[in-house]
Every structure is written in C-alpha cells, then in structure tokens.
C-alpha cells in the first residue's frame, strides 16, 4: 500500500508537466495580447512594448515555458500580470473556498445518489423506481448554470429563504452546493441502481436470505458494500467534472473561489494566474483519484494495487 502511494505521487510529476504545457500552449493560441490589455485601451505602441519587455513576453515561447516550469517546481507560480501579486498567494486564498464548495457538493452527490439508487433497486420496476429514475434523468440533463439561476430565482428571489449570492455563511453554501451536486447525484443514483440490481441477483445474496437475515441486513451489509465498488469509481470521476462545474457555479453565485479566479484571469489574459489555477485544480483531481484507488482497495481486498 505504501509503495503504491509513493509510486502514484511520483507519477504526479509528468502530470504537472503535461498540464502546464497544454495550458501554456492554449494561452499562446488564444487571440488577444496580454501586454495590450494591461496597458489599457488607447495606450501608445511604446507603452505596450514596454509592458511586453517587463513581462518577458518577447522571449521565445520555449524559453518562457521552461523558466515557468522550473519556477513551479521551486514553489514559485509567478506573479499576476494584473496586480503583480504572487499567484500562489491568490490561489491559497481562493482554494479553501472552492474546496469547501466541492466538499458539500460531493456530499450531496453521494448522499442523494446512494439513497435514490438504493430506493430504486430494492423494488425494481415499481412506480417508486420509475419515478426516481425519471427525476435522475432530469438531474443529468439540467445544465448547472441554468439550474443555479432557477434555484436562485425560487429560493432567493421568490421565497427569500436563502441569500442570492456571496460567501458569508452556511446559508450561502446551500444553493451552489445543490446546483453542483445534483447532476452528479443523478449519475451516482443510476450507477448505484444498476450495480445494486446486479448484486442482488448474485448467489451470495440468496445465501444471506437463506440464513434468515432481515432484509435490511441483506441489503446494507451484504449487497450495498459489494455494489459500492463501481460506484466509488464514478464518484471519483464525478469529482473531476465537479471541479469544472465550480467555474460556472462560482460565477453564477458570485463566489470568490478558484473557478471564478480562473475565469477572471482568462478574461484579462493573466497567463500565470490561469496556469497556476488550472495546475492546482489538476493536482486536486489527481489526489482525489489516488484517494479513490485507496478506498477501492479498502472495500475490495481482491484488488492488488501493485
């Protein structure tokens, strides 16, 4: 197990290289000149050139990239082009907010998804099952920015139960977390249902019933743990799209998280900021995947991690 984790940590290095390279190249390709944007509208050509010189933007691309990567491995993500502050400081300020949002969202995804999946699977093809699955289908189909606006309109504007936007307290977490979590919950529900149905048909479930166990013991002790194995993978993958979702949801709910930081940075062509943000988000995703693999092994000892 220890060896496995160590190996996986080493594998993060090429991931960092890959992510920085891709982001770097994309930012080079998008139209718009960071120096011109920074200099402001109507600035003279000389001023723009001056900015370009100061930021090192006129060096060859390869040189710019290599010096950036070298700095990253020393913990220096560069300075923001806009306010000259270190990118890392900004990220460390924003990351906890996004992580908190992601944590509650994934909580909703897992809790809602598992519950719905189990409810469906215990009585397959019943009215209960069909209605839960129709709702799940809706959940998958709704785009999160639209769902976010809808929830905001209903609970904040019409009913006035919850704040519209911002990040000041627990009440602020509910709507964005729900917006982000619902889509994943629907996917987890469908996965849980099919996995449970598969497990309930297995011989060992019949054995459990033959012992005289109560049905809820059969479901929760014997079936659910086995059914969870594929669900864990889905939850792990879901976390990735959830991180992507924070970009939209943080913008809709005006939350100053990592996602919104990246969006703003893209708008101002603040290259170091974008790179830093995406890199950190990728690292979080890699770690979550590692966690999933370890969990996977904990649930199912047959899996040999090495």
């Amino acid at each position, binding site marked *: 197990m220890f060896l496995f984790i160590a190996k996986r940590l080493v594998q993060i290095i090429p991931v960092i290289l890959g992510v920085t390279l891709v982001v770097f190249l994309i930012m080079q390709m998008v139209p718009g000149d960071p120096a011109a944007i920074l200099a402001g509208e109507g600035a003279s050509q000389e001023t723009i050139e001056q900015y370009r010189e100061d930021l090192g933007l006129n060096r060859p691309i390869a040189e710019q990239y290599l010096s950036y990567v070298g700095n990253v491995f020393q913990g220096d993500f560069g300075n923001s082009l806009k306010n000259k502050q270190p990118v890392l400081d900004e990220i460390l300020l924003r990351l906890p907010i996004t992580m908190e949002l992601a944590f509650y969202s994934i909580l909703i995804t897992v809790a809602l998804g598992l519950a719905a999946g189990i409810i469906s699977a215990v009585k397959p093809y019943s009215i209960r099952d069909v209605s839960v699955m129709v709702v799940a289908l809706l959940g998958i189909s709704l785009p999160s920015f639209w769902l976010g606006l809808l929830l905001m309109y209903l609970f904040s504007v019409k009913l006035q139960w919850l704040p519209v936007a911002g990040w000041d307290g627990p009440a602020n977490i509910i709507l964005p977390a729900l917006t982000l979590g619902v889509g994943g919950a629907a996917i987890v529900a469908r996965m849980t249902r099919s996995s449970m149905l598969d497990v309930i048909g297995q*011989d060992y479930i019949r054995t459990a019933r033959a*012992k*005289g*166990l109560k049905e809820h013991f059969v479901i929760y002790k014997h079936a659910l*743990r086995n059914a969870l194995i594929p669900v864990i993978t889905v939850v792990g993958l879901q976390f990735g799209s959830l991180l992507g979702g924070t970009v939209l949801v943080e913008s809709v709910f005006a939350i100053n998280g990592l996602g919104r930081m990246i969006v703003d940075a893209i708008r101002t062509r603040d290259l170091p900021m974008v790179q830093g943000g995406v890199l950190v988000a990728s690292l979080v995703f890699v770690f979550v995947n590692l966690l999933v693999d370890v969990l996977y092994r904990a649930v199912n*000892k047959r899996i040999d991690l090495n």
Partner: protein
Amino acid sequence: MSKEVVLQVKNLKTHFTTSKGIAKAVDGVDFTLHKGETLGIVGESGCGKSITSLSLLRLIPSPPGKIVAGEILLNNKDIVKMKEEELRKVRGNQLSMIFQEPMTSLNPIIPVGEQIAETIRLHQRLPRKKAWQKAVDLLELVGLPSPEKRAKQEPFQLSGGMRQRVMIAMALACTPEVLIADEPTTALDVTIQAQILELMKDLQRQIGMSIIFITHDLGVVAEVCDQVAVMYAGQVVEHRNAKDLFKTPLHPYTQGLLRSLPNIYENQQELQTIEGSVPSPYDYPVGCRFADRCPHAREICRAEAPDLLEMNNAETKVRCFMHTEKWEAIEEKEELVCP
C-alpha cells in the same frame, strides 16, 4: 415401525410467469422426510429439483416465481403460510441449505468467519466474541485446516473445497433439523467430492439431523441416501427406499435412468439412453408426462394423468398405471386380442 416425520411436502406447485407463458417448474411434488434420514431427490437437469429445494425455504425469486399450491410441513407447521418474520426464524436455524456453487455462494468481501458468526448471533443471540469462537469451532469441525487463520480470510483466499466446507459449517451453525444440500459436490473434483460426502455423513451421525440431498448423480445417491424421490417434469414419479429402488426400480423412467448408467463389468461400446426429450414446462401433456418416451405406454397413459400411489407399504410410492389394477385389465384385454 413408525418413524418420526420431520418434513412433509404435499402437492407442491411452484410456477413461473414469463413472457412465454406459465412455466410449471414444480408441478405436484410430494415427499416425506424422517428424522435422521437422508432423502435423495434425483432427476435430470430441468426437472425441478433445485426449484423444489429453493421453494422449501421460500427463496424463489418473486416475481416471476410463486408457490401456487401445496403444503410444506416442518414439524406440522406449514412454511408456505408462514409470515416473513416466522419464516426468518426457520431459515438458517431449523432448515438450512448448502448451495450448488461454493465459488459464488459466499459473499466475496466479508471474512468467512463473520459470515458464519452472523448466523449464530442472529438465531442464538450469542455475543460477538462467543459467536466468533463458535464459528472457528465449526470450521474445525468441518475439517478446515488452521481454522483460526482461515476464519479471518475472505472467500477468494480459499479453494473450492474449502469454500464448500465453509458453506457446510454455515449451514450447520445452528444445528438445523433439516439440511438441504443442492448438488453440494457438483462443482468439486472427485476426491474432494468423496471427502465432502464423508463429512456430511459424519456430521449427520453426530448431530442427528435429516438431510435432503439433491443431485443428478445416482452414484452419490447410492452412497448417502436412505430414501429416494425420483423427479420427472416437475413431479415425483417414484419415492422409495434407496436399496429397493436400485434393486427393483418400478417406474419406467427410473428403470431407464438406471439402465443408462455405465457398467464397469461389461465392455459397453455405447451408453444406453432414454429416447426422446423432456416435455416443455410451458406445455405438459394431459396424460402421463413420460408416456412419449415410455416403452410400455398404452392409450390410458396418454388420456389420463396417473397419481402418485402407495404400493404394498406406505414407503413405496409410484406414479404409473403399470402398478394399478387398471393395468391388469388392459393386459388381459390385450391377451384376448392377440394371444
């Protein structure tokens, strides 16, 4: 001599409703099991043996399956009519079961000791530690080497034979009155088969339980069973003492089965078979279900369904017109026509 009856099944019918119609997998099964005895239920694949055994514990997946008629009397209490809660107290306690597939019948992610111990905790209300100790003792009883260590392992760390021993230990956990063994040795190789059969006989002597042994292997029947019920197309066609059955089979189907066994004393080029095939459970014939394959079949066999009738003693029952008075009349008539 009147032996104590533990389990009596009367006219059991388990049908499955499918898109193709109603499959009458078990369609009128009767048998009696006495205390301390082993009853073999034999028949070819698809004759309803396994569905019968699952019906006894009401483990038929429903829908599509349903016990539509009959009684299953365990110590004179009808399992068919029991409420869920009452049934749970019987399952794994008075009536327990060993399944055909030891590879898939154990939960893959729960240590085998726990799988045994949970049954003990459930039915005997023992505290965790004592139940665990009892599980380890049981594993020792069924001959699993280093039971203490094995109890903590998960099924994938055990061989097929070991898993079947675990299944047996699990089934014996609460010293059941009746043990149903559904082809417990089919998935095992021959040496392990012999060991498992020996073990079961041994444990039966120690605990004094009755066993229902479901198999298509007549050799196994001859070795372990006191009584035999031969099944054909969802019904019992012959129910007898095992020795008598092998000596003088009464039903033409049983006769055919025994004839098709290879004989090691003769140099046989080809194995004997029973001509034809089993009728579909969706559409049984009106008369005797074996009539189309029976060398003795007469008009009456296709027109009327024979009942499972007692012969000279209550322990011998057969479902065939050949052993009724009607048959004598038919034979007399035939002799008159063609002397």
